[in-house]
């Protein structure tokens, strides 16, 4: 039998509500794969606070320190744990600060693509008719054009730069979202709650935003996490070819490209940024996969 304090506590609504919210949040996160989440969190931390914690200036190097090997190899020292690049800049600092570029571009592009994709999917799926036809043809066109080459082309026109890059990748990447989300919208259009909303007199925009969108949000999040890796690699590819983030800002793609002329002498210049890229993309893919299995059993076949 509970004592009077417990009973009093049981009836304490604010506390119970807080507990319920906490229980909901922790149960949602139950089973989250630890390693990918930790790695991604680490790189996000680097992205946000990288500039504050590095010991060397990532943009400035001492030429006499050029091409120092990592500390475990002969000629290396613990002064530069992962060695230095051809201009004498510390590799570790550059990799840490480079995280900010890759992740910023990744997140912003994914948000833009998600937004455009959802809007198009809602309009196209719910309104149907001409709107649907026009939007679907537009999606076909964007999906048919080779992503990298058109991005290169536009980057050559508007010039390099982080925000230009975000815009370019954002304007090209929404097509996949639009297509898949449109399928969801079409499916939801026939459901009872939408029909009830129509009967109740809800306007079309209200139905799309208030009723349909929350139900496609799950798929949207899944698509976004799976797409993040692709976008990060796309940004790195553009930087690798020289049309991404301009120097001296560290970007993993351009760092890999810098190291290509020195492969025989200094293998670490190309290798470590690539490992960082690989880890971030792998973690984001694994998390996306876990999320997919967790949120939407239908998706397991992908």
């Amino acid at each position, binding site marked *: 039998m509970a004592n009077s304090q417990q009973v009093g506590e049981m009836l304490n609504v604010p506390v119970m509500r807080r507990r319920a919210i906490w229980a909901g949040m922790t149960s949602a996160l139950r089973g989250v794969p630890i390693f990918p989440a930790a790695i991604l969190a680490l790189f996000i931390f680097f992205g946000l606070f990288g500039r504050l914690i590095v010991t060397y200036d990532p943009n400035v190097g001492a030429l006499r320190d050029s091409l120092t090997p990592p500390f475990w190899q002969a000629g290396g020292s613990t002064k530069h744990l992962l060695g230095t690049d051809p201009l004498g800049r510390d590799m570790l600092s550059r990799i840490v600060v480079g995280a900010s570029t890759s992740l910023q571009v990744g997140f912003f592009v994914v948000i833009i693509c998600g937004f455009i994709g959802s809007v198009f999917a809602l309009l196209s799926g719910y309104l149907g008719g001409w709107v649907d036809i026009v939007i679907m043809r537009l999606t076909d066109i964007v999906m048919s054009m080779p992503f990298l080459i058109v991005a290169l082309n536009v980057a050559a026109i508007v010039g390099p730069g982080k925000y230009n890059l975000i815009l370019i990748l954002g304007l090209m990447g929404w097509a996949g979202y639009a297509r898949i989300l449109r399928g969801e919208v079409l499916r939801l259009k026939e459901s009872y709650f939408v029909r009830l909303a129509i009967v109740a007199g809800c306007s079309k925009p209200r139905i799309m935003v208030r009723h349909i969108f929350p139900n496609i949000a799950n798929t949207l999040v899944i698509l976004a996490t799976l797409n993040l890796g692709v976008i990060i690699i796309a940004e790195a590819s553009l930087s690798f070819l020289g049309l991404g983030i301009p120097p001296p800002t560290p970007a993993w793609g351009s760092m890999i490209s810098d190291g290509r002329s020195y492969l025989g002498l200094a293998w670490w210049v190309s290798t470590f940024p690539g490992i960082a*890229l690989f880890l971030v993309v792998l973690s984001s893919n694994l998390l996306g996969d876990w999320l997919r299995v967790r949120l939407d059993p239908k998706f397991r076949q992908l």
Partner: protein
Amino acid sequence: MQRYILIRVAQALLCVVGISIIVFLLSYLSGDPAVLLAPRDASKAQVEEIRHQLGLDKPIYEQYWKYVSGAVRGDFGESLRWKTPVMKIFLERFPNTIQLALAAMALALVIGVPTGVLSAVKAGTWFDSFGKVFAFVGQAAPSFWLGTMLILLFSVTLRLLPTSGMGSWRNILMPAFALGWYLMAALTRMSRSAMLDVLDSEYIKMARIKGVPEVWVILKHALRNAAIPVVTLSAMQFVALLGGTAIIEMIFNWPGVGKLIVDAIFARDYPVVQTIVLITSSMVVFANLLVDILYGYIDPRIRYQ
């Protein structure tokens, strides 16, 4: 069925027209070729003259029409750098890219599909874990970094394979591997998942009950049905491969269309860029069209969408 094919063909043509408009606009906005072509100390009047000669002072829809009517006949203009018809340059390089893409595709199929199938058949064992890891790693490693690492390992350190150029199987091995890597991983995942699905179905259980040897069950009954999604994925990804050749060709100096277009972009050689984007996009559109029609034959439900 006829109606379905007609609708899809009309959509594909509309798509190509849309692409040509976008490609044309991109070129138009890229800057003024007349300024690039004229010698540096040319006066304004001379630049105007060049512009007039190239037909660049005409209204935009006239330029577009000129471009399209030429394109339909196969005349895509001349490269600004080499003064030869773009089509000729393209046709010289295209077989090289196809060769690379086919090699990548072959490698991906030969390595990816058996890995996926075995992974499914031996689900839960160490091989399955290996297969899953392989698939994930493959989809996460960027192809250009992988290409660079391969060069580091096989050319610089072990001195087994050449770093660039075309010629023997040694030259094509690394680029094909780097290019096909992502597809290998995707095929492993897809084959595994398709195979797992099929192995669960009634007719497989029936075959086992009948006493058919397990190898025969897998190869003859299961594989055929698991092949459908794998084949579709391969067909669609083949065209994506064509886009991915750009970076690989740059790294390995492979004289193909990808390298051509990246060089052209940097050299501001707009006719070449325009043409290649148009041609590759059209190939994607028609490949999708073929796949859709094929699907219409295989799965009748799709025709009534």
